[in-house]
């Protein structure tokens, strides 16, 4: 399956509809990155949301950058005397970077 990549801010209700979800692949990622199935319905959705087109590598860089920022927040959120296990209990696992499709 081929994909397109864009950024757009999710405005909430009707940003993507039930009908649209049945017509093309869609997944949202950190940094308002959206991966969209490459068909006419996907193109129409990108137009509807005024998506800013990105290459896959540009989209990946945005996603990774946001997660790295979250990792920094996690790393700096410490409580005096807290063990690493206790920190994970409090904050859950450290955010991890990943490769988009």
């Amino acid at each position, binding site marked *: 399956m081929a994909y397109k990549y864009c950024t757009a801010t999710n405005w909430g*209700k009707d940003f993507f*509809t*039930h009908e649209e*979800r*049945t017509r093309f692949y869609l997944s949202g990622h*950190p940094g308002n990155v959206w991966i969209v199935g490459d068909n006419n319905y996907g193109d129409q959705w990108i137009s509807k949301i005024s998506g800013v087109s990105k290459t896959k590598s540009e989209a990946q860089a945005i996603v990774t950058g946001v997660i790295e920022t979250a990792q920094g*927040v996690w790393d700096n959120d410490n409580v005096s005397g807290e063990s690493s296990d206790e920190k994970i209990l409090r904050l*859950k696992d450290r955010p991890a970077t990943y490769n988009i499709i």
Partner: protein
Amino acid sequence: MTAFKTIKGVPVKTISGNRAGASFEGQLYYDSDGVGIFKFVGALAAGTWASGGALNTARTNLSGCGTQGAGLAFGGQNSGFKNESEEYDGTSWVEGDNLNTTMAYLGGCGTQTAGLAFGGGSGGSEVNGTEEYNGTSWTEVNNMVVGTSEMAGFGLQTAAISASGSAAPNSPTVNVQSYDGTCWSEIENVNTARYALTGAGIQTSGIVFGGSASPKGQTETWNGTAWTEVANLNTVRNIAGGAGTSNSSALAFGGTDAPSPTVNTEQWDGTSWTEVANLAVSRGGLGGTGTITLALAFGGTPPVTGATEEWTAAHAIKTIDLS
């Protein structure tokens, strides 16, 4: 009509219109909008997630209750613990009265006008506080017997269950507590101790699934008397979202099996979990509420989000014209 009552023991219900989201498979009803029109509720069609209005305060490890069209989200964390409470009207979230205590990993159940928040943690230690919401404000009521966080909470404000979770000092517990609208009491334990699990249902018919105990897919059902181990989730996870009304009708969505969150959604039919349509945004630590036909997913991480998605899966309705 008389024959139907004689055979089934109950009369045919009269309902206005299709009411697909509120019906159950196999139900026969009389459509009051028609003349001589009976309708039969068929199998559940494939559901999908659509976007809803975002929380005003983005957060994770929050709790919630209510329905898709009248939801309630409360507590959580995002650079600190939160006491914000918000109401959803099917389109947007509106800030309401705050919890009296800032809290994440708390349990929640009930409705938008009769909600219940219990337990939770705010810095690695479990608490036992309980608060009731009346549609306007939160009031502190009697504490849980044992302070617990990351439990599965389900039921109503006057008939709630807190199952398993993490009890002081940060240990997974098999303990289950029941609330009768006034006091908490200990009841039958679950089979597998775990935290970060999810629950759905009512006090006499519930289900818990996922959580920290390997392989993180265990499911147990509750019949009001005993817990029974049943089929595992297909996709293991903890801190997932959940919705459902009984031990035979539930949805599991999102969650994480470290380090990555999932978009996976599964539906429970009383026997097994079946994979259905994915969330658009992968996340763990999200809130969930509703039914297998009309559910709501909100908040979560990473990164911390206020995004909301609405699940809709309608039953096929067949018309039987007896005129």
